[in-house]
């Protein structure tokens, strides 16, 4: 399933957080969504997941528009929000079962066990979420995003605050998921972009400044590194 974004905009008063952007995320590819803090990455992602209503324009998944009222389309989307908010008072399995129930999943128990294994939460599965370390919380966040096997995954900074080992694990997992899903991922780490992304979008001050495949972007600005390209495009 592909995601099409057409002239999507979000204004807060006079401030244009997202200023009429259009792009497409291809099926089976991982799209890296880059930009400095405050460029409008999270706002865009919140609109694509149907949390925020856009001021104008729209986002579509396979031709079906996404907005806060389109409850059925939300079945096809998995979302890991920024800073991974979770219910700290719930147990890992209890929380994942709760999320599964909201999608009315069948064979819920086995599905929960399956995702716990998939994200490597087994040693911590009987703990309360509030007791987990940051890396494991992040895994719970990813688990709740993929439990209903969505065709589209939106991950907002999935690797922030992880140690190098966890980083490698999560990247591997995302790469694995990316084979059959459409993934949009935002990050500040350029090596990560190099390692897992197929396509790149860079936005700055609510506007798209680059929209290309990783290879052609690198070719275009050779011999500069991704970091240098990023700096050049967003330092305006």
């Amino acid at each position, binding site marked *: 399933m592909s995601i099409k974004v057409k002239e999507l905009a979000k204004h807060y008063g006079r401030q244009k957080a997202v200023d009429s952007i259009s792009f497409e995320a291809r099926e089976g590819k991982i799209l890296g969504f880059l930009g400095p803090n405050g460029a409008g990455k999270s706002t865009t992602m919140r609109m694509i997941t149907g*949390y925020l*209503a856009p001021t104008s324009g729209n986002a579509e998944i396979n031709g079906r528009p996404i907005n*806060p009222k389109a409850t059925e389309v939300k079945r096809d989307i998995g979302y890991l929000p920024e800073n991974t*908010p*979770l*219910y700290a008072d719930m147990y890992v399995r209890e929380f994942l079962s709760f999320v599964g*129930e909201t*999608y009315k999943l069948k064979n819920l128990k086995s599905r929960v066990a399956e995702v716990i294994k998939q994200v490597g939460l087994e040693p911590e599965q009987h703990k309360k979420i509030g007791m987990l370390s940051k890396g494991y919380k992040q895994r719970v966040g990813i688990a709740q995003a993929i439990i209903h096997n969505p065709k589209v995954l939106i991950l907002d900074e999935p690797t922030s605050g992880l140690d190098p080992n966890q980083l490698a694990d999560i990247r591997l997992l995302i790469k694995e998921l990316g084979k059959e899903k459409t993934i949009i991922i935002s990050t500040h780490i350029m090596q990560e972009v190099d390692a897992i992304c197929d396509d790149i979008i860079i936005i700055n001050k609510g506007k798209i400044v680059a929209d290309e495949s990783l290879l052609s972007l690198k070719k275009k600005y050779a011999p500069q590194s991704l970091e240098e390209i990023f700096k050049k495009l967003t330092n305006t």
Partner: protein
Amino acid sequence: MYPVFKRELFSYLNSLMAYITIGVFLLACTLLLWFFPDTSILDYGYAEMNSFFSLVPFLFIFLIPALTMRSFAEERKEGTYVLLATRPISDWQIIVAKYLAAVILLLFALLPTLVYYYSIYQLGLPKGNIDTGAVIGSYLGLYLLGSAFTAIGIFASSLTKNQVIAFAISVFLCFFTFSGFESLSKLFELDKIGAILLILGISEHYQSMSRGVLDTRDLVYFLTFIALFLGLTKYMIGGRRW
């Protein structure tokens, strides 16, 4: 909707706060009705529960905001509302689920007070000399009053991410809708405005139900009241101004 309702109810039942607030409510009720001589049913000498039904609304003004203050305020503070809003559930379903969980919790606060009825029933002379019909009507009225306060509490909780502010706002709104309208109406005693203000307040309808008379107008009033505040909550939540 059911999963959200279940989660909310369990989260109430797993938190010490609910038990402490309900415990304090029951303790205050029992002390005021059975031990403190000024308000004691035993000293009063009549086998009726009127003092209970006139006391509890004032305790509810504090109890219910304390129970409902976290419902949306906490989600907002922790940023967890996005976890609900990006599921295939509508805003209305979330609001109603949270509301129902709080209303069921309220039942847990009221059920133990049936002991008072039983005690008065046994102590009456002759035994059982208590107007059961009036008690049932009063309980129904009290539960509707509590449900109305819960709707206020849920609404106040959707206004802010600070639970203390949510508590303060809902205490004020509960107090004002309960007895504020009645007091205001006294300013316009001879006017039509006075009569209208009186009808707007909860107290008038609650008292009419306490007499043991089930009037559809009172029922409609309470249901409209609840729908109004849940509708306002929807307006606050739907806009995602946070």
